[in-house]
């Protein structure tokens, strides 16, 4: 029950986004993938869910080679994964309950009564009790993110993939989301990969942090390791010093 990214390369036209990403997320672990905007963090996440296929390399989830799976097998695997989108990606023509019901209807043996119960339980977990009949447009940014998380956990996945769960949120709502991510791990025992560029969140929620730079993972370690990193690229990113990042990239031969 782990996620393995093995030497992933991906280009869109002439633009090479990923240049050999390798990373393992072990069972029950929460790993944050940090990096600059446009570094390819979301592209990496989409490879895990099979939304993109790598040009080279592979992704192994639950022992299955994702890029070579048939559509049927991929759909079975996807029901083991919850995907929390950056802007929630809630279906705006549906109520929150209908949004949550979408994934549940794909599960075998769920009666309408079971679905209703699961929707209520999932909304309770993210503290959105009573929001069943609201539409996404009626929710604030933080509530939408929580509804997106509720939709992702509704079908009790083994893996949770978070794409920038706290971007654009105020500090208090960010803390609420961070706590929810930690609670998902404690309560549901999920294996999680979190894409973020918010180091404060990454330190709080992660067992390990990986830094993506110029399409490669340049450092992986515990939050304490990252804080004490000797890499100028990592320190420059963490401390918000672009000159230090450039200097480190040149020294380590990481420039594009």
């Amino acid at each position, binding site marked *: 029950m782990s996620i393995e990214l093995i030497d992933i390369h991906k280009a869109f036209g002439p633009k090479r986004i990923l240049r050999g990403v390798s990373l393992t997320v072990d069972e029950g672990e929460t790993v944050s993938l940090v990096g600059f905007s446009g570094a390819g963090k979301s592209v990496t996440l989409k490879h895990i869910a099979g939304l993109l296929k790598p040009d080279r390399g592979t992704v192994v989830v639950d022992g299955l080679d994702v890029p070579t799976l048939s559509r049927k097998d991929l759909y079975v695997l996807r029901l083991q994964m919850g995907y929390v*989108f*950056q802007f929630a*990606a809630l279906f705006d023509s549906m109520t929150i309950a209908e949004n949550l019901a*979408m994934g549940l209807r794909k599960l075998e043996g769920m009666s309408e009564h079971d679905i209703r119960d699961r929707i209520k339980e999932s909304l309770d977990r993210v503290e959105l009790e009573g929001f069943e009949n609201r539409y996404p447009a009626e929710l604030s940014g933080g509530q939408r993110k929580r509804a997106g998380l509720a939709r992702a956990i509704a079908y009790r996945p083994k893996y949770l993939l978070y794409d920038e769960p706290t971007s654009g949120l105020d500090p208090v709502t960010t803390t609420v989301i961070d706590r929810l991510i930690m609670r998902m791990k404690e309560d549901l025992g999920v294996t999680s990969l979190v894409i973020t560029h918010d180091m404060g969140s990454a330190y709080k929620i992660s067992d390990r942090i990986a830094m993506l730079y110029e399409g490669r993972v340049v450092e992986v370690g515990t939050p304490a390791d990252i804080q004490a990193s000797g890499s100028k690229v990592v320190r420059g990113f963490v401390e918000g010093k672009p000159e230090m990042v450039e200097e480190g990239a040149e020294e380590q031969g990481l420039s594009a």
Partner: protein
Amino acid sequence: MHWTRPFDSIGSGVLSAFGALGVFFGFAAESVRSLADVGTWGPLLVLHMRRIGVDSIPIALFLSTFTGIVLALQASYTFTGAIPLYFVGTLVGKTMILELGPVLTGLALSGRVGANIAAELGTMRVSEQIDALETMAYNPVAYLVVPRILAAILMFPIIVAFGNTLGITAGWITSINVLDMSTEQFVHGLQLFYKPFDITYSMIKATSFGFVIALIGCFQGFHTQGGAEGVGVATTRAVVISGMLILVLDAFWAFTLLQ
């Protein structure tokens, strides 16, 4: 400038056009394959038949009514004295059924239906709702594309049939009230060159126009890139391309079925 530069541009233009065609036919083939996923598109079919079909009837009827009135008046203006007046019925009937009923309705609905589909799917694409469907193990083509195309194929002939009927009725009312014709004269003209195949021809055109409008709208929406601007581009393209294809198909059916 190197002498091969113009050939490079032509070559890359041809390659990109073939690439785009490949993507389009791949999308059409995927739509056909997704027909097998009845469990996904089946429950949505009636909803889209209402949204694409029933909700489009008022605009189609409005268009046909005025087309029928104008056809009757123009026929009478053209025929003055030289041709018996009952030919007004012939011209109104033939023109509505064979040409203006399906084509004008198709062009109007490429704006209403095609633009609506492209904008809706385009917004879903740029806001990652289509990716969200995929992550929840839904085939997005079966969920979003197939029911829209089937609804358009099923509903366009019905809309055009209503439009044809109302257009002819409007022509008849205009004839008996404004042109000093009797109902018998109008009906006589209407029946004069009528062939049952006229209706079949009109329905074949309507079905093909519905298919093209929905397919192009879905394709453009599904392949939207960027944000709001991308949605705007996709919507405009859907209307322009389906409008052009309607006219090309119109000529194609005339060549193949009326010769």
